[in-house]
Structure formats: structure tokens, C-alpha cells
């Protein structure tokens, strides 16, 4: 099936009939089979699916980290497909924010420097008001001069969130952002992501396999075997879990 969005809403990112094939011949693996999906602006979308369903691949392709075999990707009004390294770098720098499972902060820089890094690389001046808002939202004001090694996992991930938000990108891609956190720290981060969507109209696409995490989103897209198989709007942990179970039985039937 094809996931579409309510008419009239602006689209922040779009995949149209995207195929991704790894390897060739006998060793060929098809990770994505004609995926078409749109992500509305100022919405928090979760991508779910069992291991190997292609959810991470889809996110990497959307974010310009990986190339697609066929189909096109758009971020805002930029066509990602066909961009060279320089174009992709510029896209990532100016239009995309990232949050990783492993936090991925630079150990040599303080929290504040880490937050400002994308802007510094781009040579852009930060908007002080926005920066203050972001820092207060993530609650890191008293930790700004600490280095990552002096911060807890939850704090590090909040720094990573602030880094993604600082440049107000078109869309933030979060790859299992709570995967390395305990449930309390995870909840903090997810609440923060939700607030940034609700209050600051940020667009977030999050890959997760945790139904609770997915329930923070406005919408959940389910992938299985490289195809979009289902979607939920206004999810709760229970509805997500139910859908997952159904998917499991579907895929196991399909596998027989």
C-alpha cells in the first residue's frame, strides 16, 4: 500500500517509488521495494517494522546518506536523487538534522560547541533567541561547558537533539534515539522531540522498534519486507503493539 497524507498539508520529505537493492546476482538483497511515502511538515512521524524490514534503509535514503536504486527522494523542494557528494553534503548541512542511537558527539568539544557545530561548519551565525529556546527546552543551560564524557547518556542525547534543532532544518531524522537510554531518559528525549514539533513546528522522522517510543509520534508508518504495509494516526502503545503483532503474523504467513 501507499501511505499518503491529508491533502493541503505541506510536505517536508517524500519518497516516490523508491527501490533499494544491495549486491547483485545470487547475493542480491532487495531492501526497499517501491516505497512511496510523504512526511508532512510540523509532524512527528515514526517508522516501525521488524528487523530487516528496511526501515533504517528508508531513513538513510531519505536523509541523503544512502543512494536509491530507483525512484526519487525529495526534501522540501530539493530533489535529493542524483545529487553528488557536494550537493548531498550541502543538503545535510542546511536542510537535515540527525539524531543517532549512539549520540555521536565530538568528545573534544563542549556541549555548546557540539550544539553549534553544524552552524559553524556551514559558517552561519546562530539565532541567539532560538538557541536560548532550544537550550532551555532541552534543559542543558548549566551543562553547556561540559564535555560529552562528563554528561550522562540522557544528557548527551539531549545535546544531540539540540544540535539537530539548532539550525532549524527542514526535517530531523532520528535513528532509534532512545535505543541506548533507560526508560526515564528515553521519555525525556521523546517528550522533548514532541514539544519541538508541537511548539516549534519542527518536522521529525524517527525510526524505532519500540512501541512506546512510537506512541509519542503523530503518525506511525509500518514497513515489512521493504514495503509499507500499514499506518496508524494518533497511535498509542497498545495500538502500535497490536499492529506489530498483526504484521508478524502477516509476514510469517507470507513467508510460508
Amino acid at each position: 500500500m501507499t501511505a499518503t497524507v491529508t491533502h493541503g498539508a505541506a510536505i517536508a520529505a517524500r519518497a516516490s517509488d523508491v527501490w533499494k537493492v544491495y549486491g547483485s546476482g545470487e547475493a542480491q538483497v532487495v531492501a526497499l521495494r517501491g516505497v512511496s511515502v510523504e512526511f508532512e511538515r510540523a509532524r512527528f512521524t515514526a517508522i516501525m517494522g521488524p528487523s530487516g524490514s528496511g526501515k533504517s534503509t528508508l531513513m538513510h535514503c531519505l536523509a541523503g546518506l544512502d543512494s536509491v536504486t530507483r525512484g526519487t527522494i525529495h526534501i522540501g523542494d530539493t530533489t535529493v536523487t542524483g545529487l553528488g557528494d557536494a550537493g548531498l553534503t550541502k543538503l545535510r548541512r542546511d536542510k537535515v538534522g540527525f539524531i543517532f542511537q549512539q549520540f555521536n558527539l565530538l568528545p573534544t568539544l563542549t556541549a555548546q560547541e557540539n550544539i553549534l557545530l553544524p552552524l559553524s561548519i556551514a559558517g552561519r551565525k546562530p539565532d541567539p533567541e532560538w538557541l536560548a529556546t532550544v537550550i532551555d527546552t532541552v534543559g542543558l543551560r548549566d551543562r553547556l561547558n561540559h564535555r560529552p564524557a562528563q554528561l550522562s547518556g540522557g544528557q548527551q542525547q539531549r545535546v544531540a537533539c539540540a544540535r539537530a534543532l539548532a539550525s532549524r532544518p527542514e526535517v530531523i531524522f532520528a535513528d532509534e534515539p532512545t535505543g541506548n537510554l533507560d526508560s526515564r531518559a528515553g521519555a525525556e528525549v521523546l517528550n522533548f522531540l514532541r514539544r519541538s514539533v508541537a511548539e516549534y513546528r519542527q518536522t521529525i522522522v524517527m525510526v524505532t522498534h519500540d512501541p512506546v517510543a512510537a506512541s509519542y509520534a503523530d503518525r506511525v508508518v509500518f514497513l515489512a519486507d521493504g514495503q509499507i504495509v500499514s499506518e496508524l494516526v494518533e497511535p498509542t502503545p497498545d495500538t502500535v503493539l497490536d499492529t506489530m503483532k498483526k504484521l508478524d503474523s502477516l509476514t510469517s504467513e507470507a513467508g510460508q
Partner: protein
Amino acid sequence: MLRTTLKSLLARKLRLVLSGLAVVLGVMFVSGAFVLTDTLSRSFDSLFSDAYATTDVGVSAKPKIDVAELEGEAVPTPFPAATLDRVRAVPGVAAATGSVTADGAQVIGSNGKVLTSFGPPQIGLNWTGENELVQLRTGRGPTADTEVTINQAVATAAKLSVGDRVAVLTPHRPKQEFTVVGIFGYSGNRDSLGGVQEVAFTERVAQESMVGQTGVYTQISVKAADGVDPAVLRDRVAAALGDDYVVKTGEQLSADAAAGFDEALGFFNNILLGFAGVALFVGVFLILNTFSIIVAQRTRELALLRAIGAGRSQVIGSVLTEAVVIGLIASGLGLAAGIGVGALLAYAFGQFAGGLQLAGIGVPVSAVVSSFVVGLFVTVVAAVLPALRAARIPPVAAMQDVATPDRPLTRITTAGALVAALGGALLALGLSGNAGDNTLWTVLGGVLLTFIGVALLTPMISRPVVSLLGRLFAWSVPGKLGRLNSGRNPRRTAITAAALMVGIALVTGVTVILDSAKSSVTALADDTIQAELVISGAQTGPRIPSFEPSVLERAAEVPGVATVAGVYADQAQIGGKRTWVQATNDVAALREIFKVTPSAGTIDTLGPQQLLVDSDTAAEHGLSVGDTVPVQLSRGDARTYTVTGIYAESDLFGGFVLPVAATADFAQPKPVQAYLKLAPGATVDQVMPQIEALLADSPTVSVANRAEFIEQQTSQFDQLLMMIQILLALAIVIAVLGIVNTLALSVLERTRELGLLRAIGLRRAQTMRMITVEAVVISVFGALLGVLVGTGLGAAVVRALREEGITDLVLPWTDMAVFLGLAAVVGVVAAVLPAIRAARLNVLNAIAHE
């Protein structure tokens, strides 16, 4: 365990190749030195055995002064021609040939240039006909006193053929002209024996020109009758001639000649090994660093081994086994490369020396043994510390992501301070001259300890300095990231930089010393020498270029010339000690020119059988005015001289001064220098062309004004400096490998960070700039340390040499700036490959990298 070790070795090929390369280069230098000297030694052996192949027994007169190969030219002593008859009369002698053979016959080529030689002698001799060795190629032997026959090497170099006119310079005659009547070669179709140039005259011309006496020979070559043992014949000839003669078999003569060369080659070998030592010392830093990084990266793996039951000693063994394997492979490769380099150098030497026929390239046992011993030793020693560190990894590290906290630098800094202080103390002891015979070793030990101490202190120093240096590049984000990265692991940065420090420090130190010496000598000469014009020649071989004594008289008659002081030089045996002596035609003028002051007696006149001596030498020989002393010169009998004056010793002029009459017994009875003082009102420009005209027949010398002369005399400092710099370049190349290695490992270690930076928008060019800044900061830091340490060492040596007349301390600012600039370039070059690698990382894989 062994299998695990070998597998992990293979998994880290690149690192090992880089660190192994340092050992390969060092070992290459070691084995190259041995192969070179062995090849040359055997080549000389075979050369001399060929040269003496036709001689069963050789006779020569006992030399007046014993001179070893390294100390100058042995001067043949002529003996009466009648000796030949006495030899012929000895039973068992089939034939005996008397010859006059001496070094110093220089042919002037058809282009007017004097043939020079950088080592092989230029022999002038009498033609004694063809034999098994000497074979005429064209023409005949000389029969008239206006004819010469030359060997093919001379003919080729001077572009001469039979029938040509040729001018020849000889020690005892002015320039003479001859007609070439023949050209000869040697058995085996050789143009020359080891590059020796030979000019064969008639017997009388050879006697007059080469030894300055007729009716004499310098050697007799004896052929034994069939069935007579050369050793037996030798004893018979020796008994017949008495104690004034040296009689040896051909084998002995050949062995003696070769032994002299072996001594010189051994000296040469030691110098090469010294530089190899520097290279290997730098290599230790590189290997130490590589193993430290490998151990740090393998923390989990090693902890896992410990967790599943490996003992500490097994972990240590595993790291050391890696070191042994690398050491073995690198030593083997270094040995092979050294054989190639040695062969190449031997070939180059042979060509340079004028066609020495090389014996086959051999690999002496010493080369193999020393290569493996040195290579293994260096590698294993460098791996010991990392191995001990590996053994301290707790098994629990396998289970958790142990953040390896920066260990405090207190211990290493304290150790560094202690070692550096010890080094400084040894240096002070050595340089103050209180270490007696051990001075050299004390100073070397001091330098070594200073280097190790400073290397240990480097992590501490690196923090502020690297951060300061990095600010130069902090104007861009990549620059800032690079600066932060270079300060990230002070130990690693420090060791990498310290390796470069050693090479740069040695070069800087030597530059400081030589520049100071040159400046001091120049200033002293400029201040002392009161002559406006100087006649002298550039010495390329063992003989000092000389000119006709008549030039002195004719120069004195040139309008505008006030005085001319000619200087003759020779070796002499005085009071049982061998020493250089000088003689002059005008002692008053010489005294004035060198501003010599008397301390006892008179030094303004010098009669025959009188001599002057400086106060230091006088004290050494226990001489005072009025004493008599026997002086044995290169030729003639010992004569007794009376000390008539003692002068104050100065740095530019010293030793015994003999009257001009003594020069008859000098090996070379011609002046080697002349100092001209001009009359008031006369200018250098007026006089110089006229002096030049006088020197037309003495093409090996020229006239120069004072500044030019001083520059000529001090240019040897520059040549020495250049040679040392070339040899030390190897140590610097190895240090550069170290920087490449460190960067490559850093890139590998920080793969995920690089992935992140690329993910959030760092461009490829920016990534490369970041790595480059890191490299440049490290290398400039190393160079800066090197310049500082080198300046300190150099200044200490210069200070210690103040007594020897090195009073100026010259800091080579330009050179220092060049070294720092070069270090920046080195950093950029070293960063190329790691930077490309970093820029090419696949962003996605990099982020997912564990």
C-alpha cells in the same frame, strides 16, 4: 595463542607496514654500510694483489717518517741505484727491476685543466717495460727525456693520444712538456688499477721530477728464480741489504696496502653506522607509538583473552611475538634493501674514484648478523612498554565500554625531568672536559638521555604548545577541529613529534656548531690576516696544491707588492713526535701578516739550522730558547736545529717554523701558500692580474683577495654541514612515516566521528583540511622542539669550545625558519593519504562503525 597473535597481525597490515618500514630503513642503512665497506675492502684486496702479482719480493728504503693511510701520504725514500746490483747478486734472484715511483704527477688535459683525483694516486714513474700486468696498447715506452707513456685512464681523462704534446706537473720540477709516445693498459683489459693515473718517464726524468735526485730508486721489484720460495728469498735479500731497507714478499706488500685501506674503510663504516643508529633511535619512537595504539585499540580483544583464561604473561607474549615477527620481516627486508643500496654506493664510489674494479657484491656475515640483531632488538625494545600495558588490562574490560581515561602525566613528566637532568649533567661533565678519555661517550650519552628526557617531557609540554600552535590554524572550523584532535592524545602526539624532534635537533645542533665555528674562524682570520692577496689552491686529494718557489721572488718584484711570505708545509718527526711543520722564505713578513708576537728570543730572523716554535708546542716538547732539537723531515737525514724564538700561540698560526733551506728535504719542496702585502697606495685590482700571470705554470693554485681566501678556507664547514644534513635526512624521513602512521590510525579510530561530521555537513575538502591541520600542528610542534633542543645542545658545545677559539655563537635563524617551514610542508605531505582516506569514508558505514 600463537595463532591468535598471527591472525591479529594480519588484520592490521597497514599499521605494521608503516612501523615496520622504520625498521627496514634503519636496518637498510646498517647492512648497506657493511656491504659497501666489505665490497670495497675486497675490491682493494684484489686490486693490490694484482698490483703486486709480478713482485715476488719488494725492496724499499725504510721511510723517514711512518705515516698511516689515514694520516697523510707516505713519502717514498730514495736509495742509491747501486742497491739494485747488490740485490741482483743475491742467490735465487732471477731478475730485479729498480723503479722510481711517487705520487704527484699531474697531467694537464688538452682543455688546459689539471687532472684531479679524489683518492687514487697520480703516479709518476720510470718506464720499466711491459710485463704480465702492464701492457702497451699503442706506441712504445719513452726513450728520450722529452717523451712519456701514459696509462689509458690518463689518456681518456685528458683526451690525449699518441703524438700529442702534454704538460705535466711534478713535485720537484716546474711544469714540463712532453710528447706522448705510448698508451698502456693492464691485464684483464683494464684502463687503470683502481683509478690510479700513471705517467711513465725515462728513468732520469722520473728521478729528477719525482724525487729530485738522480742515481736513485724508490723501490726494487724482485722475481725469484724457479723453485725459490719468496719468503726465503726475502730473508736472503734483507740479510744482504741490512737494516736500512724494508724487504717484503709481494703477498705481504699487498696485504699491507690493503690493511691501510681497511682501516680507512672501518672508519667510514663507523660513521655510516652512527647515522644508522640515529635513524633506528627515531624508529623506536615510531614502533613504540604503533604498538601503544594497537594495544589501546585491542583493549576489548585482549580483555576477552584474559577473561577466557589467558595469563598476563601470555598477553605480554602475544604482543612481543608480534614485535618479533615484525622485527624479523623488517630486518630481512632491510638487509635485502641494504645489499642493494650498498652495491649501488660501491658502484658510485668506484665510478667516483676513477673506475675501481669492484669485486663481486658479497653479503658479509657481519651484515646479516647485525641486521637481524639490530632490527629485532629495536622492535622488541620498543614493544616492551606497550606489552606491559596490555598485561594490565583487566578482564572486565571485555564486558564494558571502558572509557580509557587519560592517565595523569605526573609520572612520565617526573621521569622525563629526571632523565633530562641526568642527560644535562652528563653533557656538562663531558663538555667541561672533566671526563678524560670518556669525553666522546659521555657527551653522546648525555645527548641520548637529553633526547629521551625531552621526549618524556613532551606530553606535558604538548598541551599548552599544541594548543597555542593550533590557534594559528583556528580561523576555520576544520582548523579548530584539527587543532583539538592534535591535542587529544598528548602521549601519542608527543611521541610522534619527539621522533621528528630528534632529527631536527641534531641538524640544528650541528648547524649551530658549524656556523659558529665558521663565523669565529672568519672573524679571527679577518681580524688577524694582514695580507691583501693570498695564493693558495683547493685541496682535493691527499696532496696540498703547490706552486713554483720562483713565483715568490717574481711576485716580490711586482710593482705595488711590499712583502711576500711563502709558506711550505710537511710532516716531520721532532723529539719522537710526528708533527706538521712549516717553513717560510720571509719570517718577518709572515710574523707581521699573522700578527704573531714573541714571548721569548727573537722571531724576526731565522737562520739555517734555527727554528721558531709557539709557546704551547714548546711546553709540550719541553723546549726553551737556546735548546737544540733533532728534526727528521720526509727526506734526508735528521738535522739538529736550535730554538731561537718562541712566539705566543694563536688560533690561526702555530707549530714549528723552519727556514726555507729546510724545504729541500720536504716531500714537496714547493710553497703551498703565499701571503702578499701591498705597498701603500697600491690596489688589489692593479696587482692581482700581474700575480695571476705569474701563476700560469701553476694551474692548481690561484690568487684571491683576503675575503675570497677566507671564504675558501671556511667553505669546508658548509660542505661538512651539507653532508651531515643529507645523512640525517633519513632520520627525518622515518619521523615523517611516524606522522603518517599516527594520522592513519587516528582516522581509523575516529571513523564514527568523521562519519558524523560528514553527516552534519562537513565537506570533503573541509575533512581533508581538518586532518592536514592536525598533521601540521604535530610536525611543527616536533620541529619547534627540535630547533629548541638542538640550539641548546649546539650552544652548549660552542660554549665548551670557547677555549678552542670558537668565540661566536651564531644562531642560524634562516635555517631554523626553513626547518619549521619544512615541518609544515612535511605535515601537509604526511596528511595526504590519511586525509584522502578520511574524505572518502562512506558516511553511512562510518557512522555505524564500532
